[in-house]
C-alpha cells in the first residue's frame, strides 16, 4: 500500500513544517516586542540624560550646554538623533567636577544611555535579520509589527569618566599630580 505511506509522509512533513512555522512566528514576535521595549527604554534614558545635563548646565551657568540639553528634550522625531549627538559632543567637551552630585547623576545616566543604545542596536539587528528569513517573508509572519528602526547616534560614552579617575590616583604623589590636574 505505497499510497498510504505517501499520505502519512506528507501529513508528518506538514506537521513538522507547521510546528517550525509556529516556532518561527513566536521568535519573530519576541524579537519585535523586545526591540520595541528597548526603544522605549533608550528613549527614557536619553530624556533622563538630557534632564541631568540641564541641571549641570544650570549650575555651571553654561548657556551652550543648557541649550543643547533643551534641544535634545524638545526634539521632533526626525531631529532627535542630531540633537542627541550635539548633546553628547557638548558633554564630551566640558570638564566635569566629580565631587558634584549632579555630575555623578549625569555620569550614571550617560552610562545607562550607552548600555540602552547598545542593547537597542543589537535587538533591532536581530529583529531585522528575522524579518529577512525566507519563510518569514513568504508567510508574512512579521506583517503585524512595524519595522524596527536603528537609532543612529554616535557612541554616547563620556571619555574622562570623573568617577573612575578620581579614585585610583592619590597613592604616589609624584605620579598623582599630573592626572589630578588633567581631570
Amino acid at each position: 500500500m505505497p499510497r498510504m505511506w505517501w499520505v502519512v509522509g506528507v501529513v508528518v512533513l506538514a506537521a513538522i513544517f507547521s510546528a517550525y512555522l509556529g516556532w518561527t512566528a513566536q521568535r519573530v514576535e519576541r524579537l519585535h516586542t523586545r526591540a520595541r521595549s528597548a526603544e522605549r527604554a533608550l528613549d527614557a534614558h536619553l530624556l533622563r540624560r538630557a534632564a541631568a545635563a540641564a541641571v549641570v548646565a544650570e549650575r555651571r551657568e553654561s548657556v551652550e550646554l543648557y541649550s543643547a540639553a533643551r534641544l535634545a528634550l524638545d526634539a521632533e522625531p526626525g531631529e532627535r538623533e542630531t540633537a542627541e549627538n550635539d548633546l553628547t559632543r557638548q558633554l564630551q567637551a566640558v570638564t566635569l567636577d566629580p565631587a558634584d552630585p549632579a555630575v555623578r547623576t549625569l555620569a550614571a545616566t550617560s552610562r545607562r544611555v550607552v548600555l540602552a543604545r547598545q542593547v537597542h542596536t543589537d535587538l533591532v539587528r536581530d529583529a531585522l535579520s528575522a524579518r529577512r528569513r525566507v519563510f518569514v517573508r513568504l508567510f508574512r509572519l512579521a506583517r503585524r509589527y512595524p519595522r524596527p528602526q536603528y537609532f543612529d547616534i554616535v557612541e554616547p560614552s563620556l571619555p574622562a569618566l570623573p568617577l573612575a579617575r578620581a579614585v585610583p590616583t592619590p597613592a604616589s604623589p609624584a605620579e598623582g599630580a599630573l592626572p589630578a590636574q588633567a581631570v
Partner: protein
Amino acid sequence: MRIGIVSPYSFDVPGGVQNHIMDLSEALLELGHEVSVLAPADDDAGLPEYVVPAGRAVPLPYNGSVARISFGPVSTARVRRWLRRGEFDVLHVHEPFTPSLTFLAVLSARGPVVATFHTAMTRSRALSAAQNFLQPAMEKITARIAVSELARKVQVEHLGGGAVEIPNGVAVRKFASAVPLPGWPGDGGAIGFLGRFTEPRKGFPLLRTAFVSLARERPGLRMLVAGPGDRDELYDDIPKELHDRVEFLGLVSEADKARMLRSVDVYVAPNTGGESFGMILTEAMAAGAAIAASDLDAFRRVLDGGRAGALFPNGDQAALTRLLGELLDDPARRTDLSSCARAAVGAFDWPSVANRVLEVYATAIEATDGRVFDDEWS
C-alpha cells in the same frame, strides 16, 4: 533583584571563570540582592550556600585547557527546574557558547538574559561556522558583557552584536591584608609564579630558565610556585642543587593564593598567549607585589601600559632574566611599581564591578518587558 547565575565549569576545580562567578555573587549579595548560582557539581561537594549543584561534571578539553562541565538530558531537567523555582528577574550566564549548562540555560530561558564572555579565542572558525545553528540561542541573550577588550572584539567580529566591556573584579581588601607565608620573602629575594606550569601558554619554562641562571649568581634567591600539576614534573627540570630553593605549594585555596602573592618580591607572569585579561595580575597588584610580565596586549592594559608592572618582550628569555635581575637589585623601583599597582587596581575592585554589572541587568530587564527603572541600582 532576584539574580540567577549559571556557571559552565565545576567549582571542584579552581579557575578564572569560577572565581569570577563567586566573587561577583558575593559582591551582589553584599549589595542586598538575592543570588542563586547553578553549577556542575556532585551534590555532596562542600559548596557556598548560594550554589545549586546541577550534577556530576565531566572533564572536557576546551580551548587549550581542560574544563569540567555538565551537559545532557539530566542536566537539562535540572536547569529547567532551577529556572522555574528561581523566578529570577534576570538570568546571567557565563561563556554561553560552551557546550555546557550555560548553553542549556540560554535555550530554556524566557526572561532577560545577560551573557558574559571571558575567553578571547583568536581562531573560532568553528564558532563562525555554527553561527546559523546558534542564532536562536543568540537571540535570547539581551545584553552582553566582555571581560576584556579582546573578548569583546571576538564577540563583535565572530558572533555579531556588541558587548559592554566590564573587566574582572578583584577582592582588593582580601589580597592587601593577607599575611605572608612564614619565612617569606626573606633577604635573598623571592620570585613567584602561579598557574598551570605544565601548560605551554603559561610560559613557565621561560621563568624556570631565568631562575636557574639568576640563582647561580645569587645565593639567597628563592622561587615560590603554586598551581595544579605534579611535583616531580616541576622539579625534574630544575638542577638538583637548586631544589631546596624552589618551594612548590601545589593547588592553593583563594586565601593561600593571597598569602603566596604577599610572600614574593617579584611576581612573574611569563605567559606567551591565550590570556584575555590576566586576572592573576590584578590580584598580584592588590597584594602589592612588584610585577614582571610579558607584553601581551591584555597584560599591558591591566598594568596601565607598564607603569603598574614591568613588561618584557613576549617569549624573550634573555630579556626576562635581565629584567628580573634589575628588579631584584632595585628595591626603590619595586616600591614604585607596587604603589602604582595599588593605585591602578582600585578600578578593578569588586563592588565597583558589581555595580556596573547591575546596570547591565537593569538594561536587559528594561529591554525585555518594557519596565523602565527609576534610579540606579545601588
